């Protein structure tokens, strides 16, 4: 290599050059977008969980804690039964059990729903590491789930052949596809089915729903249990889908982000899904921006990129979304006259 070429080579791989080249690279975009899809999956599940609970009129800030319990139970199930399907089912079951506490407290005992949600979070953040210590011997993490029993990725026939899109949309674990299917199913269910109509009526006008013969409180309890199921899926994705084992605090605020994604999406499934994709994108971007400078701006500290979803949420809440978007009876226990 002569001197001229080697200089060019150096410039090419210098900090700034590398930064610019990265953004023009197709492979970079494939990995960025496909990881956006992966990272938004737990958010989508949990946000749909929030949708079920809040549309029926029960505030649910316990998503975070429910996810953590789901993550723990899924890891345990996967290790104990040596099967990822069993792991997912365990995650669902455990999160549903804890959600039932929230349901009973809020619906039957007329508890303050925000306080109860906080209580569930504190409870779950104690329970998961405590059980981890009792079952695995350490409060920090579970043993690693080896690849033989780990959830395998699926390829979608036809779709995987399309260049770029195939690479982004295919080669994911089944839970990623399931989340997307759930979004559209929930949308159709909520808009087109009688039960979906009842669901919204219970959250907006419980008195009217009651006079039509809908059992308001039973409906709400089932809705909160549904949110438990979905949070269980979200947790299972974190511990046995995306990761390979449970770790303490592994939800790291995703439950709250999911909740804001749902508010951002105005309590509707499809806009909520897009909000989740947005938050997933900033998360994926933040991982890739560590150490790579942006053209023109230089290197942005990862902490600042991490802040992005939170700031965006606050601006959006202040600017565009009024309280009129929320279900009308949100947070108010229903007491039959």
């Amino acid at each position, binding site marked *: 290599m002569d001197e001229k070429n080697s200089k060019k080579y150096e410039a090419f791989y210098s900090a700034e050059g590398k930064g610019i080249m990265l953004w023009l690279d197709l492979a970079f975009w494939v990995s960025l977008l496909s990881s956006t899809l992966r990272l938004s999956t737990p958010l989508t599940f949990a946000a749909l969980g929030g949708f079920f609970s809040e549309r029926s009129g029960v505030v649910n800030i316990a998503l975070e804690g429910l996810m953590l319990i789901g993550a723990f139970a899924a890891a345990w199930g996967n290790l104990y039964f040596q099967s990822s399907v069993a792991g997912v089912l365990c995650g669902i079951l455990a999160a549903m059990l804890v959600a039932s506490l929230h349901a009973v407290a809020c619906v039957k005992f007329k*508890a303050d729903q925000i306080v109860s949600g906080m209580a569930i979070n504190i409870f779950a953040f104690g*329970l998961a590491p405590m059980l981890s210590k*009792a079952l695995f011997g350490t409060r920090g993490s579970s043993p690693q789930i080896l690849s033989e029993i780990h959830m395998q990725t699926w390829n979608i026939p036809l779709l995987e052949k399309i260049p770029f899109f195939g690479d982004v949309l295919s080669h994911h674990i089944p839970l990623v596809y399931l989340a997307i299917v759930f979004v559209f199913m929930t949308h159709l269910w909520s808009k087109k089915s009688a039960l979906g109509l009842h669901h919204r009526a219970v959250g907006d006008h419980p008195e009217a729903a009651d006079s039509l013969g809908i059992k308001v409180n039973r409906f709400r309890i089932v809705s909160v249990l549904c949110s438990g199921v979905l949070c269980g899926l979200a947790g299972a994705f974190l511990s046995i889908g995306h990761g390979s084992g449970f770790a303490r605090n592994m939800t790291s605020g995703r439950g709250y982000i999911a909740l804001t994604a749902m508010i951002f999406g105005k309590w509707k499934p499809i806009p909520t899904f897009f909000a989740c994709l947005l938050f997933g994108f900033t998360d994926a971007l933040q991982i890739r921006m560590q150490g790579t400078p942006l053209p023109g701006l230089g290197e942005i500290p990862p902490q600042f990129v991490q802040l992005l979803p939170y700031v965006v949420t606050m601006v959006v*809440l202040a600017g565009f979304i*009024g309280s009129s978007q929320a279900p009308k009876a949100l947070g108010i226990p229903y007491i039959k006259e």
Partner: protein
Amino acid sequence: MKSLIRSIIALFLALACTGVLVSCIGESPWQVYKILFTSAFGSLSAFNYTLYYATPLIFTGLAVALAFHVGLFNIGCEGQLYMGAFATAVIGTYIPAQSSFPLLWIALMILVAFLAGALWGIIPGLLKAYRGSHEVINTIMMNFISISLLTYFALYHFKDHSIQAIATPLIPETIRIAKLSSWFPFEHTSPANFAFFIALGTAYLLYIFLWKTRYGFEYRAVGKSLQVAHSTGINVKKVLIFSMALSGGLAGLVALSEVLGHLYRFKEGFSHGYGFLGIAVALLGRNHPLGIVLASILFGALHNSGIALEFDTAHISRDLVGVIQGLIILVTTSDGLFELPWMKKILKNMKLSILQKGKA
């Protein structure tokens, strides 16, 4: 009286549930209860740690309670106390090491802690008053923002390079708050400091403010009903904004016990969820300053005994404390639970026995 009985019942119910859980794991619940008690109150040094953990909880509990009285939900105490701690730790390093008026400097630092917390609290207040956006989401967001932002600043701009942890340099002797051990027969190394008494004083001041001043009356009126308060001529927006600022300021005062009183620096992750536990404390103390002080000591005791629990049992970790705390909150907030027939019976019997004792 009624609320006290309810809080006590909540405590016992939570402990009973925990007992069931503990026996499922295969430990003896009685052993656990014994450890919980002795490691919190069993010795002078144990009691000292209990007071130390209770101090920040008093501040955050008061902060949450103040907002509660106005009908607001301040979940942002965690972010606000981080702001207060960081501001005092950073500004504190500029205070001269020798001074003949240390009390003045300490008073200044208290003001700094208060203002920094208030700054973080006023933002959701403003957004609530002018844009109608819900303070719960905003304060949760501001928690993340403040912790992320301050970790960045502590790591890249104010880091003490002599230690490995992400922390700012030590503050000078001038503004350090004395340890309780300098007056009381505690061990020299024990962490509890005079911020505990400042916390008690703050609780008393808040009581005076809320129940004995015109402003306090306005605040509680807004909490009862926004519309009624508005139509009686109270400037509701002003109350919303300033109550959030005051609440944030109270949370910021946690810096007194942590930064000025014990660590002498800002350290990443120094708060053991004090902001969130403040909600529990306010709730258990029924939003009354005296109740909050008692509830803080209870929660401080629980927090303290968690570590002993881990050492003295084979299968239980300190996380059991979180489980107990969560259950206490859940039971306390479940109003309907106390209207069940069997619960009403218990309440009635307890009241009768207390009345009889009072007569005898």
